[in-house]
């Protein structure tokens, strides 16, 4: 699946997007965040406060317990500051 990162999540990980293949037991958004956290220092820094991170699946806001199965694009980002 395709993963996108925005704002300081993007800066800390050091890339704007990538394709990942998490193992089958990674079922929810929060499980995916935990798995990503273990992928390296930048990931650990980006996700150090997982409660702050917002997630969208296929461009729709979702919650930490939302299942990720079937997702084509998952995006992680800080709280939004538009307007």
């Amino acid at each position, binding site marked *: 699946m395709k993963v*996108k990162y*925005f*704002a*300081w999540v*993007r800066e800390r990980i050091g890339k704007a997007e990538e394709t990942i293949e998490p193992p089958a037991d990674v079922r929810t958004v929060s499980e995916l965040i935990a798995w990503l956290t273990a992928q390296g220092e930048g990931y650990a820094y980006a996700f150090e406060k997982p409660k702050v991170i917002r997630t*969208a699946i296929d*461009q*729709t*806001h979702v919650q930490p317990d939302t299942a990720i199965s079937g997702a084509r694009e998952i*995006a992680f*980002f*800080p*709280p*939004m*500051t*538009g*307007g």
Partner: protein
Amino acid sequence: MTAIVTVRVQHEDFDTAAEIAALGKGRTDIGAIVSFSGLCRGNDHETPISALTLEHYPGMAEAEIMRHAEQAMARWPLQGLTVIHRFGRITPGENIVLVVTASSHRQAAFEAAEFLMDYLKTNAPFWKREETEDGGSWVEAKSHDDAAAARWTK
């Protein structure tokens, strides 16, 4: 007459006057037009800001704003609604965002504009980074913006 909903996410500046005129043009059924322009301030903190850079999530930004524009249309008797949000580098004094609402009644026009601004501040996928002399930093989300947005879910 029909209601016109316009949503644009763009780097280019916009013309507030032209957008207000476009909503009212040739119509005699509109009693109230409210416009909100959000501008880049240079003096938000002690350190002067030389520019803002707005990052956004292309695709989701447009879709999410449109979804909220449609919610506003369903909730208030609006005859027209325009939302424009810029991205990229924006310097102090420049426009960031525009919401224009047209209705027969002023309360509907005011409320719909406030609802959309509260939404854009808290839930539209845009992130502001401030550029200052000592570098820059991402703007932190404000809890009073969340509180303002929450009043519409009552």
